[in-house]
């Protein structure tokens, strides 16, 4: 395996059973993540984009081993972490940390900022005593807060500041991979840009690797090196960020890009897609129900993710 790859996901599947009746018989599955593969090189940012229900958060949580995978392999530093036993997981948890979407519900309101950040350090026995305090103070400064905040409680902070605390907690264990699950979508515009810059600075400083999940394409473009677009549990396109935005190949990516309201005062009629994301994937291409160029073949066969240009993959028969 290539040494430069930190995370490699192969054919990952996460299915949730649908149960019915008195005996809770399994009558089918919701295929939240259905056979996705990608890899993230050391020190880069991999953006995962998609609408609600596309499976991006489920994918991330499966990779962090918070949800049980149905199938596939997740190699972290060359080691498949999916079969690891619960007792072996603590080792991995030190290397993979998460920044959550909602800074209001992801910090325990009864703990001080100091104890929130200290918790992972204590659990992983990284520091204690005065060294612990020093580390917390340094972390707070790194994320743009002051060491004087150590004894305050989360409710004393604004949304942006809370997200900074969440980032400090994620970085406390010196992780290699940070999963950022919509870290800025709950924040105000003027605060969003502060947090995005901070994430970029910290990445340079600590050579972090990010798996960055968002639904906002302009945010993802700013932060990512490679972007994957998910639709109904499948990856429909992967490409370097610049290429994806300049030459999108999959009709779904084109639809997403055209739907963003640009801050330019010029009325454009957006594309006339009437239908919405479905609950159940069709038999063929998952996008065939909404696609403007789909034909009968698309509705029957599932298009494979193919390399259409160097480094640019798309799952569409028509491109």
């Amino acid at each position, binding site marked *: 395996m290539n040494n430069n790859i930190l995370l490699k996901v192969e054919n990952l599947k996460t299915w949730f059973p649908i149960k019915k009746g008195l005996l809770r018989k399994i009558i089918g599955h919701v295929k939240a993540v259905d056979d996705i593969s990608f890899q993230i090189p050391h020190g880069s940012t991999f953006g995962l984009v998609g*609408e*609600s229900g596309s499976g991006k958060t489920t994918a991330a949580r499966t990779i962090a081993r918070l949800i049980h995978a149905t199938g596939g392999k997740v190699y972290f530093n060359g080691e498949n972490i999916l079969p690891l036993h619960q007792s072996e997981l603590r080792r991995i948890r030190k290397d993979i940390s998460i920044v959550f979407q909602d800074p209001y519900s992801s910090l325990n309101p009864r703990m001080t900022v100091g104890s929130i950040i200290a918790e992972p350090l204590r659990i992983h026995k990284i520091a204690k005593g005065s060294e612990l305090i020093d580390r917390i103070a340094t972390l707070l400064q790194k994320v743009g807060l002051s060491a004087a905040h150590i004894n305050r409680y989360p409710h004393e902070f*604004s*949304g*942006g*500041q809370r997200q900074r605390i969440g980032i400090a907690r994620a970085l406390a264990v010196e992780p290699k991979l940070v999963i950022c699950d919509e870290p800025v979508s709950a924040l*105000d*515009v*003027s*605060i*969003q*840009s*502060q947090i*995005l*810059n901070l994430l*970029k600075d910290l990445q340079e400083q600590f050579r972090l690797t990010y798996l960055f999940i968002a*639904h*906002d*394409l*302009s*945010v993802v*473009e*700013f932060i990512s090196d490679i972007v994957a677009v998910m639709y109904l549990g499948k990856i429909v396109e992967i490409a370097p*960020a*610049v290429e994806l*935005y*300049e030459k999108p190949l999959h009709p779904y990516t084109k*639809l*997403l*890009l*055209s*739907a*963003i*309201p*640009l*801050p*330019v*005062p*010029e*009325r*454009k*009629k*957006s*594309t*006339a*897609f*009437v239908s*919405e*994301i479905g609950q159940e994937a069709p038999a063929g291409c998952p996008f065939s129900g909404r696609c403007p160029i789909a034909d009968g073949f698309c509705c029957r066969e599932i298009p494979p993710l193919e390399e259409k240009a160097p480094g640019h993959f798309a799952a569409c028969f028509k491109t």
Partner: protein
Amino acid sequence: MTENGKILSIQNLSTFFDTELGVAKAVQDVSFEIEKGKTLALVGESGCGKSVTALSIMRLIPTPPGRIESGKIFYREHNILEFSEKQMRGIRGNKIAMIFQEPMTSLNPVYTIGDQIVEAITLHQKKTYEQAWSMAQEMLDKVRIPDPARRMSEYPHLLSGGMRQRVMIAMAISCKPSLLIADEPTTALDVTIQAQILDLLDELQQSENMSILLITHDLGVVAQRADDVAVMYASKIAEKCSCKELFKNPLHPYTQGLLHSLPQLGTRQKRLNTIAGNVPEPLNFPSGCKFHTRCPIGCNDKRCQTAEPELKEVSKDHFAACWYAPGYEK
């Protein structure tokens, strides 16, 4: 007072809330007008008072703790702040309708879609249940809900977020209001659905010649849909002008900061511009100009720190509240 074309005219509106920690001045001295068939966007970050302004217009401020301290709100030529609750019921939902941000929580889960729209119709119009039912069905068709006859007898949980927002819009326009207040109508929705809902509002506005007060924090949505814009910061209007002018020639440092801090698609920026600091809270507004703590000009300026600039016309139809805006008379 109001000329023919103006549907809504707000003059020096102030809305305060009494809290245990003191008086929270959520909206102070806000004035704006909306003309017939036009869209005014009220932009601002959380806590700046944009939703409280909307609720004040609907007279839906919970009293106590809230109260409309001063000001006038003219709907056509009537000051609705002087209306009795009974008179107000004839306006609310009938002449002025509102759609809310959260389509998930603003529909009643124990009534069918049809019942909820029928309720809105029979409340304001003399219709039998059957007449109202068929009107409601027409409304669902109008907001392009497929198979409206079936949807009428379904419950909200069977609909997706975008569909629920369509139902909300159907309900809001069922009495043909002349003003629609849309409070963050697409914030909870995906981009593709957002585009559909905005298109729908656009069409309805044209076919019904309806005015829209669009409340949002998304400058992209503003650019695409608004005729005029008022930017709110910390309970006051910081800048007010036409939409084109705002994006071409923003004068208030806050507006400039907001526009510059957006990640721009297709430019591969290395870093984003930011506005330093945090959004102030209503109980803890800074002295002087409320933006001075975050402002690149105002942070070291004595006057900005002590004296608050009023909103003044700096060029034709362009208002700004900044001592340093070009054309601002001191």
